[in-house]
């Protein structure tokens, strides 16, 4: 019995953000995250100090999942980024950094949180409306007629994770593989109730990245000696093998007998009875010309032996995760009965083969359709392999989201700088009716808009980690990075070739300013001439849905944190 203890009163902290401890720890977190951002981000090693698993990463999912923070305000921030990542996989760092920047910049303005909240909410709606509008300058439509945009999307995700340790060639190779696997999962049929298939990632350590490959169907890893015993297999015809899929255990145990008592008289063996039933089932399988029996759970050795004797291959213990892909690719209905079932439950396979890949042996089940495939991913060591696996999962999710909404945003910092450019332009001649609605003065509006834009720009600035300078052009507001080693006597703009997203190339008439310095804002929609567009090169593209959502989540989380007036902690 537990002891009844009186509850301790909670700890109540007022005005949390005004405390130095908190703003300090917030800036530490923000520095950590900023240094990880982008293709040239620095890697972080997560370890527990007592010999636990070591993880080298720069991804938000691994980083924020592994970090434990003590302070409540940081917990809010991290919780909100992690829930975003669980829904969209991508743009976690963007949301976290933007949120930190916004908090820091808004706090400097010394305006009341609710004024800041109202105005920045309005600015956010300007951004989202612009992103959703047709004339948005940082958005491109994804054309499914060609693989270029999709390839760019996958490649951007991979290159932004430097801990995968991929060369440019390897990154291109993996993104092509990813795209291939993704396209295989898109079903050929049309109509309602159509869903995407599945690509299953099979990680193999210690191989070269370029050894990675896509296989149609399912790969089941198996030791060599077991694999040899499985064959031969009985075929229905040259290219069809009948398959039965079981979701219940065929181990010969007595099924659930209910809540009451079961009295077994001496001399009667219930196990014997069940085993007899199993053998009967086996006979049925043989009679129905089943070539392969796959079971989620365990198959009784006697049944295995019996079936093997009749050239029926038995694969057991495939696990619950493999059931859905198996059902999907063969059309088999998982059988949950020990008694003869109708033949409509059986599925069909095209072939079953042994595959030796690197150091591992697999049994490959090859289906007639292609909605299920296996992506074998190779990398040199465990850490990089894990990072690559996470990156590939993210990229796959990004492709799926793009299929739902065929749009992409320009990556490489261009979307951020362009949005800031647009907001600066809009903020200049904000109508007084809007100011009235927001019940704020023009100056207040401009201060908040400036902080908002600077926060966006400094997210873009985080892409540069090597003391380089960032320029922006004055009619599109794109992001142009200048390497740090520049000659003294030349101007910075001599060193730029193309913008961050590679959509534009340097043109002689372009004017430049350093990002974040004030210039006369112009309407970004005015100059829609495509003369400087670079269409041959591969663009850097980000997922539209993920980035839009993370922008909103960051601003909303920032409102939330700025608005906190108390923290109450129940320390019981």
């Amino acid at each position, binding site marked *: 019995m537990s002891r009844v203890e009186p509850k301790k009163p*909670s700890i109540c902290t007022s005005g*949390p953000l005004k405390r130095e401890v908190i703003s300090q720890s917030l800036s530490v977190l923000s520095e950590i995250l900023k240094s990880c951002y982008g293709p040239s981000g620095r890697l972080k090693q997560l370890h527990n100090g007592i010999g636990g698993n070591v993880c080298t990463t720069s991804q938000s999912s691994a980083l924020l999942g592994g970090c434990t923070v003590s302070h409540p305000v940081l917990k809010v921030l991290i919780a909100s980024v992690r829930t975003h990542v669980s829904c969209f996989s991508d743009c976690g760092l963007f949301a976290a950094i933007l949120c930190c920047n916004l908090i820091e910049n808004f706090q400097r303005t010394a305006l009341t949180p609710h004024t800041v909240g109202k105005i920045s909410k309005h600015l956010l709606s300007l951004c989202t409306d612009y992103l959703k509008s047709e004339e948005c300058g940082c958005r491109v439509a994804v054309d499914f007629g060609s693989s270029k945009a999709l390839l760019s999307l996958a490649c951007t995700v991979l290159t932004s994770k430097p801990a995968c340790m991929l060369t440019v060639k390897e990154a291109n190779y993996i993104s092509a593989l990813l795209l291939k696997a993704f396209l295989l999962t898109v079903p050929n049929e049309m109509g309602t109730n159509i869903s995407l298939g599945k690509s299953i990632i099979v990680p193999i350590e210690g191989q070269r990245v370029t050894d990675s490959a896509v296989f149609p169907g399912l790969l089941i890893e198996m030791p060599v000696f077991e694999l040899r015993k499985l064959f031969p297999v009985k075929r229905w015809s040259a290219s069809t093998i009948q398959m039965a899929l079981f979701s219940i255990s065929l181990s010969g145990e007595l099924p659930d007998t209910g*809540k009451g008592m*079961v009295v077994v008289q001496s001399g009667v063996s219930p196990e014997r009875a069940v085993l*007899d039933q199993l053998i009967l089932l086996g006979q049925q399988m043989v009679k129905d010309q089943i070539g392969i029996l796959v079971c989620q759970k365990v198959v009784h050795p006697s049944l295995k032996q019996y079936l093997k004797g009749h050239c029926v291959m038995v694969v057991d213990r495939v696990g619950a995760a493999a059931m859905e892909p198996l059902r999907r690719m063969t059309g088999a209905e998982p059988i949950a*009965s020990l008694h003869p079932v109708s033949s409509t439950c059986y599925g069909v396979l095209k072939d079953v083969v042994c595959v030796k890949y690197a150091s591992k042996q697999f049994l490959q089940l090859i289906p007639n359709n292609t909605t299920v495939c296996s992506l074998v991913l190779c990398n040199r060591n465990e850490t990089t392999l894990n990072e690559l696996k996470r990156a590939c999962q993210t990229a796959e999710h990004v492709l799926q989201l793009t299929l739902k909404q065929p749009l992409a945003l320009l990556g490489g910092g261009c979307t951020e700088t362009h949005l800031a450019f647009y907001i600066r332009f809009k903020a200049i001649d904000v109508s007084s009716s809007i100011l009235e609605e927001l019940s704020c003065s023009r100056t207040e509006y401009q201060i908040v808009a400036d902080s908002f834009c600077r926060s966006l720009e400094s997210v873009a600035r985080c892409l540069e980690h090597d003391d380089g300078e960032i320029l922006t052009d004055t009619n599109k507001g794109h992001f142009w990075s200048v390497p740090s080693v520049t000659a003294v006597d030349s101007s910075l703009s001599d060193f730029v070739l193309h913008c961050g997203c590679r959509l534009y190339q340097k043109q002689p008439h372009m004017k430049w300013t350093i990002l974040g310095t004030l210039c006369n804002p112009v309407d970004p929609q005015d100059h829609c001439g495509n003369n400087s567009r670079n269409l041959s090169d591969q663009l850097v593209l980000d997922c539209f849905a993920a980035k839009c*959502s993370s922008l909103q989540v960051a601003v909303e989380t920032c409102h*939330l944190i700025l608005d906190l007036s108390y923290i109450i902690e129940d320390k019981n």
Partner: protein
Amino acid sequence: MPSSAMLLSVNTLLQVAESLENVVSRCFGPEGGQVLFFKATGEMLITRDGKTILESLLLDHPIARMIVRCATMHYSLTGDGVKTFVILLCSMLRGLQAIVDKHDHPFCGNIPETTKHRRHSHILKKFSSSLSMFQACVLDPVVIHDLSKHFLSVYFSSTGAMQLCKDAMQSTLEIYFCGRIGNINHKFIAELALDFFYQCLACENSESEMVSVIDELFFTLHTEVPGLPVGNSRILTGVVLHRDFAAYCPAEGERKVLLVTESMHPVLSISSSEFVVKSEVQLQVSQVWMTKQTETIMKHLQDNQVKVLLSSVKQPDIVLFCAKQVGISVIDCISSEEISLLCRITGLSPDYVSVSEMLCSQQLTGTAVATFCRPVLLGSRRFVHLGFKKSSVFDPHCVVLCGPVKGLTQQYVSAFHGAFKMLRQLLKPADISCKHEQAPVAQSSSCNGNKLKKGCSNTRSLKTCADFPVHRGVKPATAPNILQNNGNIGCVTDRLEEVPISCMNKSENDQGKRNESVQENCTVFKQLSREQVKQDKTGAGAVQKPSLSSVERGAVLPVGGTFEILLHYYLRRCSQQCHQSEMSTVSTLVADALLEIPKNIYRSKKGNCSFPQVYTCVVNDLRTKESKHWELKGLEAVSCKHQLLASVLQCVTRLVTIDMLLGVSRGPSRNRDEDSENEL
């Protein structure tokens, strides 16, 4: 708990209340901040809700706990107003302390502490007596007769029929959400709530029933989706069950739904029985029979066109398998709340206790028809989405509330739920309570609904209700309002036990026990009501509603302290006209206390929006009788405000009647009346 006795003075009460006020006042009003609350489990909650804030503090002081409890009870009625409750309570206690200090003045410092305390408690005792009469005798009449001239309504009558005005509703909801979730997303959420209200409305004139349904079933009518921006919140037709399909078979058109509460697969032996295995063959045969039985029952369901099987328990694999074979979708492990929701809105009922019973009936009963049944992806989880036809009062819809983080979505959920509590209070049909004979029924039902007074037995309340027969004689319009009075009754009855009781035969009720103060108050009341009658004849022509005893349905006032300033004005006038000194003191006290709320609202404002400006503006309008040109910034429900004042009055009465705190080693025994601590 203190281990010894401790005298309790107004001062102590005030100190405790002010410490609470300190906490809530920062989160008060549209510009108040949020509170981040970490539970002992590490779970995070973000809130501006006074109730949650006060409860999460886990206070030690018994008086503080009592205040929190009173405020929580008020919350359960109106879904809001806890912060205002605390501020108003503080302000009243301050007024009370001023009164007590004034009495002290001539003997300052000359008398020992205990004598002083005794004198104080005497004053307080008298005060609490008059306070408990105050509501029925002064407050309710003032609100119903004087204030009602200024009421706006969410209803408008276009062609004779009362119709809801969409703008007024929107405005009321906006103000509500502004207080509950801050002024960044309040417009969006208010629109969502209004949409939800109209979409759920099955037919005109069923709004109050429909709002009650939503209030009661809200737990199952919403889905939280953390990780998405707030703007993604939306309304879905039908209901979402928070489970994924156990077996899903896509189908077109309408389909029958059947609810089962037991496993569909027979087992060898049920509880408290024995199954004797005599031979292996017997076991095999019974196994075969069991499988056949499940197949038969599924076939039977298929013959009855059942396409969706809902189950409150887990169904074994074999059932899912057989269901898939015949094209029936199965959803198992549905929570009991969702089952009761489905039963309530669709007429679905678990008619069959066992499978064999189901097999026996040729035509299955207790089924419902779903218009669609499909999976829906909300955030990163898959749920079941079921559509149903509308019933007479409720058209099934549900709301998906998104937010960046889990704690915030919870705040939205509770605010959304609270909004429907508020609407329920707002749209509650006015009480007709001239039937005293039915009072006990009304009393008990209202008690069930709100649990406002635990300690007070029903028979006692009946007695108190019967204490006011004179009111009917004078003017039926002011018979005590049972619903809103039930708080005060407890205190009145407490007092009854101490004050000498005299029997009255004038009353038709045989239980007509009253005390002197009641009589006194009634005379006051007679004067008042006579004046009111006079006013009503000459005045701005407030319509006489002979049997109306509460605020009319759908009454609203402009936001920003209008209710408080108006009530202050009328109570002040009332206290000047009142010849009975005690009642006049109480009126003045309450009137002044009320002003604390607008003062708090306009605390940070300057210039035209500062409190004195607003106050003068409203009062000038009143004097010049052009009361309708107040700027329509937003509206709030009068009945909630009225209820709030009543709750605070009741709480003050309860607080001041305590004169000592006694620490005991064990908690007081459970079966004793809660109110008996007054007599300790």
